[in-house]
């Protein structure tokens, strides 16, 4: 399958937006870890903005950035959200509330606990009635999201925004599922090349394991390994470099995605 990338969104530790992040990923400036610059999106109506946790901030920031680059109307794209955990702060809070009386889970806590909360808020903010799916494949969540997005583009001819995000659990869950930092990325994918296209990506699922493409910079590779959504960093690095690149992304031990990136 071949798809075109028309917009990129990026927000992570020391990666504050695509223009600055692109320069770091292309090796033009050094990577310096810094707390992820989380912010509320002005896309959301005020009541929803108040209820938005970290995943919603991540998802909306990167999605909005990608759409601004592409110049497309947010109402016209299907969405694929992928995350290993959803809202991990909220999950911890609900488990704590349920472990002690009285078990008063607030309505907002409950509706934010669904894995597709970020998708729900995005659709409200973007005003889109297009299909939206929310996936999880533990450490392979990014690969799953990319393959699903590519099939939507290839089979349905849809314009798809893929939004991947993850953020740390508080303790005690952090110890059993360590996630290094809040991180999000978005790609707008199309079937046809446009004047905004950055690159073409071929996506192929191949049976069997393969050695994963790593990041050259040790700090960026720690981020790649430390956050499921950041497994997409080698793809962003290829887009940043502007050079044809082959990438291998693991899908557990059983399979991997073979990606070919060709700049437009």
């Amino acid at each position, binding site marked *: 399958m071949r798809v075109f990338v028309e917009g990129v969104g990026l927000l992570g530790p020391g990666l504050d937006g695509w223009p600055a992040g692109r320069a770091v990923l292309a090796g033009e400036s050094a990577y310096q870890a810094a707390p992820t610059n989380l912010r509320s999106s002005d896309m959301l109506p005020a009541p929803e903005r108040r209820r938005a946790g970290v995943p919603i901030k991540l998802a909306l920031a990167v999605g909005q950035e990608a759409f601004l680059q592409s110049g497309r109307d947010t109402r016209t794209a299907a969405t694929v959200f992928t995350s290993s955990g959803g809202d991990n702060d909220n999950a911890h809070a609900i488990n704590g509330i349920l472990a002690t009386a009285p*078990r*008063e889970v607030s309505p907002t806590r*409950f509706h934010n606990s669904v894995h*597709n909360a970020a998708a729900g808020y995005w*659709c*409200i903010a973007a005003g889109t009635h297009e299909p939206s799916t929310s996936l999880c494949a533990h450490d392979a969540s990014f690969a799953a999201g990319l*393959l699903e997005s590519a099939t939507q583009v290839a089979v349905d001819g849809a314009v798809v925004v893929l939004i991947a995000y993850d953020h740390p659990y508080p303790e005690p869950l952090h110890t059993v599922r360590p996630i290094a930092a809040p991180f999000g990325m978005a790609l707008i994918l199309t079937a046809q090349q446009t004047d905004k296209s950055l690159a073409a990506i071929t996506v192929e699922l191949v049976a069997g394991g393969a050695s994963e493409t790593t990041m050259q910079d040790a700090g960026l590779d720690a981020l790649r390994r430390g956050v499921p959504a950041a497994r997409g960093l080698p793809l962003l690095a290829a887009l940043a470099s502007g050079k044809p690149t082959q990438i291998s992304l693991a899908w557990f031990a*059983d399979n991997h995605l073979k990606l070919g990136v060709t700049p437009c």
Partner: protein
Amino acid sequence: MQPLVISHTALANSLGLGVSATMDALRSRRSGLAPCAFEDVDLETYIAKVEALDDFRVRADLSAWDCRNNRLAQLCLEQDGFAQAVELAKRKYGASRIGVFLGTSTSGILQTELAYRRLDPDTGALPPDFHYAETQNSYSLAGFVLRYLGLSGPSFVVSSACSSSVKVFANAQRMMAAGVCDAAVVGGTDSLCLSTLYGFNSLGLVSHQPCRPYDAERDGISIGEGAGFVLLEKAPAQVSPDAMLLLGVGESSDAYHMSTPHPEGLGARLAMQRALGSAGLQASDIDYINLHGTATKSNDASEGKAVADVFGASVPCSSTKGWTGHQLGAAGVTEAIIAMLAIEHNFLPGSINTRQLDPAIAIDYRIENGAGKVNRVLSNSFGFGGSNCSLVLGRKA
């Protein structure tokens, strides 16, 4: 879309184990709902529980994956010859060419809820027997089923609340159309947990009585648990007239509110219209609609408007949640299989517990069971976050 063959199905829920247990309960009008007796939950409500789970354990080699949700998944895979059917498909296509795309809303979260009661008093740590990836993580269900069936194709979980286990039909259809796999195990599992019972209660959406879909006096859902699996395969050049097919899928987003459906049923209408369009069918081609029909005031009013807009009052409709309770992430696949039972048996399920229809909803809602030729059905599933999906199932047009 190119129709896919539904070559095998399996069910496990409060009505019993296996597809025939559900069919028998529908025919004999026996509901799976009973007063809530689950863990130490102190809510006055009815639930649809699978009693066999308490003493059941997952296969020994997968013991790290043991949790209520995966127990229910395994129990279902053991019904209706499902695991054997997958074994045959494995020989035909190869283990790496069969995808596993499953829906769940809460996965094994009950395991975490209970573990939070056993935190180390000194360190606050989770107990050492807690396995995050194998139980709590949303992917747990697909990882477990993949291993149980010995498959190695692409696998993921869709977790979009109550539409999860029908959304996966769309994922599988695209994966197969794109040549990523030749067959797929789809469906889902959701099991009782405190998060959903107390969470829906906080929203004022849980009924104190057995739920009454589309009743004028409906006042909320009854939560249930269940599992359903479907084996999807590519259709051969010559499809037998008896073959059960996935004919169409339609997906949409409400873009309205996180936990309340669009009041005019906008997203529901789009999902149904897109499903008909994907199947290349007209509204008049549908013989029965299995509604989402949760029995909340807002869901049934909104869905009812959308059905009336698309189908008028000429297609028999019912919600079967009075039987099964609302199985959340497993509701979609269960109801898709019930809709297939309607075709196989030329049987129109009515609606248990519904007494007086809401006069404001202008559709052909059936309370009593009926009979009639059923060739093609539509099944609706709508979830929090405004996630909507409708399926068209049936015989070759």
